[in-house]
């Protein structure tokens, strides 16, 4: 009976003070949304991150650190330290343990997007997410020297479609002054959206890379020595070198042995890395920052809880008459203290509920934009254990901080005389 009375009194009291408490509840809601949102996106980003490459057993490049190799081959960030000789790539092709190889040749760009020189193996063997293959949303994969296939993001942002003619730039960067003006490429296909860095690159053949660099041996185009598309027909454009290669093995058990052998390759210094291992190392680095962010948000929540308590303590001054009536009617100091605890926890619970609702709305509203702007795939999903425990910690923390006004109310109401409002 007492508990029921305490809950119904607390509910009536909260409703009575809904204007001022609504504001502190809003503050708390926003901070919990922030906390929950950061944790949510952390998980989503990690998911999106680890989905960038799948089923590739080894990434092979010139000798360098595994993070560097991963960053420039998969994420298109940074530059290669060196190349792999074409002959070495041919040697690898002969290795019976290797099932397939995707050559990757980097170095040019299109309006800030990387140009990736590769071959049919890319479309055939590259996998992302949980082993999903690449698909063409429109058109077909390149087969001529000056054909180009666009990632979904490039096509969307630049408004290109099949049949458009585009001019690639020499070197990286968003604005390049040296363009391969003489060798325009024709868009033959657009890849379907993947939510990975694949969307943010354009794909041409290895021969295309060679062809557009004829006459560029000195780093700039020498007039008269570059090719026209007509001249390029029928010529052989075997490259001297490529930047890296993705490899799939016939037997996964051999991965470490092949990796070790490649790292000790006699022909030239190579590095072979396991994409999964490199991804988790990269994630470890990034999660430091994210954990700091989460910590800061935690403090924001604590700050709003303290604000809530400050308001409750201020309201206490206005509640002396009511407390004195309850006491005179026979309510114990414990009941008075319980009112404060219940009210504070109830506010925290309301804030949590609102935060979940607000978060769901925000995720639904933001996910198309995140996909567009950052190629980040976020989905609306049920909360995981970590998020539930974060959410559960909020009312628990509210209960803890509410002990302060509750104890003060308990102490004051014990010392109260009859009809005494506690004001001297």
């Amino acid at each position, binding site marked *: *009976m007492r508990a029921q*009375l305490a809950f119904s*009194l607390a509910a*009536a*009291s909260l*409703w*009575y*003070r809904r204007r001022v408490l609504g504001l502190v509840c809003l503050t708390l809601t926003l901070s919990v949304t922030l906390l929950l949102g950061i944790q949510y996106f952390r998980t989503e980003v990690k998911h999106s991150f680890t989905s960038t490459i799948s089923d590739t057993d080894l990434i092979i490049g010139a000798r360098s650190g595994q993070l560097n190799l991963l960053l420039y081959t998969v994420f298109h960030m940074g530059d290669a330290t060196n190349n792999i000789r074409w002959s070495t790539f041919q040697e690898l092709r002969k290795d019976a343990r290797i099932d397939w190889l995707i050559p990757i040749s980097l170095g040019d760009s299109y309006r800030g997007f990387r140009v990736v020189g590769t071959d049919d193996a890319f479309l055939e063997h590259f996998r992302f997410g949980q082993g999903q293959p690449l698909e063409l949303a429109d058109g077909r994969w390149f087969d001529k020297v000056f054909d180009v296939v666009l990632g979904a993001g490039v096509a969307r942002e630049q408004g290109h479609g099949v049949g458009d003619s585009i001019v690639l730039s020499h070197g990286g960067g968003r604005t390049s002054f040296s363009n391969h003006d003489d060798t325009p490429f024709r868009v033959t296909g657009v890849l379907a959206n993947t939510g990975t860095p694949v969307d943010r690159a354009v794909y041409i053949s290895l021969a295309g890379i060679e062809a557009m660099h004829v006459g560029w041996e000195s780093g700039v185009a020498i007039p008269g020595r570059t090719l026209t598309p007509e001249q390029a027909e029928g010529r052989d454009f075997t490259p001297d070198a490529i930047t890296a290669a993705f490899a799939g093995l016939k037997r996964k058990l051999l991965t470490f042995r092949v990796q070790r052998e490649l790292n000790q390759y006699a022909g030239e210094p190579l590095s072979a890395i396991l994409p999964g291992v490199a991804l988790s190392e990269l994630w470890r680095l990034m999660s430091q920052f994210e954990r700091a962010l989460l910590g800061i948000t935690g403090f924001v929540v604590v700050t709003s809880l303290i604000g809530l308590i400050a308001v409750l303590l201020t309201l206490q001054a206005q509640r002396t*008459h*009511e407390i*004195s*009536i*309850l*006491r*005179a*009617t*026979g*309510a*114990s*100091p414990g009941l008075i203290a319980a009112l404060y605890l219940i009210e504070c926890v109830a506010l925290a619970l309301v804030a949590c509920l609102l935060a979940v609702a607000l978060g769901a709305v925000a995720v639904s509203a933001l996910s198309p934009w995140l996909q567009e702007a950052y190629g980040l795939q976020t989905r609306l999903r049920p909360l995981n254990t970590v998020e539930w425990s974060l959410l559960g910690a909020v009312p628990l923390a509210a209960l803890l901080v509410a002990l302060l006004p509750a104890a003060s109310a308990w102490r004051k109401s*014990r010392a*109260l*005389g*009859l*009809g*005494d*409002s506690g004001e001297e």
Partner: protein
Amino acid sequence: MTPTTESAPHRAPGPAPAIETTGLSHCWDSEHSPITFPDLTLPAGEHLFLHGPSGSGKSTFLSLLSGMLSPSTGGIGILGTPIHQLNAGDRDRFRADHIGVIFQQFNLVPYLSAEANVTLPCRLSASRRDATDPDPTREAHRLLTALAIPKDCWPRSVTRLSIGQQQRIAAARALIGGPEIILADEPTSALDSDNRDRFLDLLLTLAEERNTSVLFVSHDRSLAQHFTHQVRLTEPEL
């Protein structure tokens, strides 16, 4: 404090008196000298007018009788129970079961409706809830009707009611569930004279019906005529 007994009630044989105090004193802190109170016996069902100027310790006396404070010396018997020997929790329960209280003003919980304010004691005391006939809500309606509170005010918030209405609702709260004693601390001092007489009439009539003792405290001596027993508290001599 010098008590001046004008027509102090005498101890009656039979049932335990509603209130009985002996050698009562209370000391707020060591800097002040203790306040002493007259020995007092109020037979069950009878009313007492306690008159005294402000500062004469009336509120302290009521706090002691209601068990909100513990006396420094002396004993308090309420309905035969020595409440000065009870612990704080038992005194709260005893108050909830047996004592109704009306203050000078701010009598009502602002976030409860008139009706919920009246039934509040029944939610704190099982014995008062069981004593209602047939249930707290219907007894509350009967009391509110008897105290002339318009029906449309019952479910509404109490903050917009007139002071006279608020005081009558407080009287209904004190009366519900038929507690043996009502302690009324200057309940009419915020009312005009018409309202005051009406309030006193209603309170005493309804208390008689329920055989409830009323201890009425006021500085207004003109009200004394309504009571058979009167006690006067005077300011302590310096």
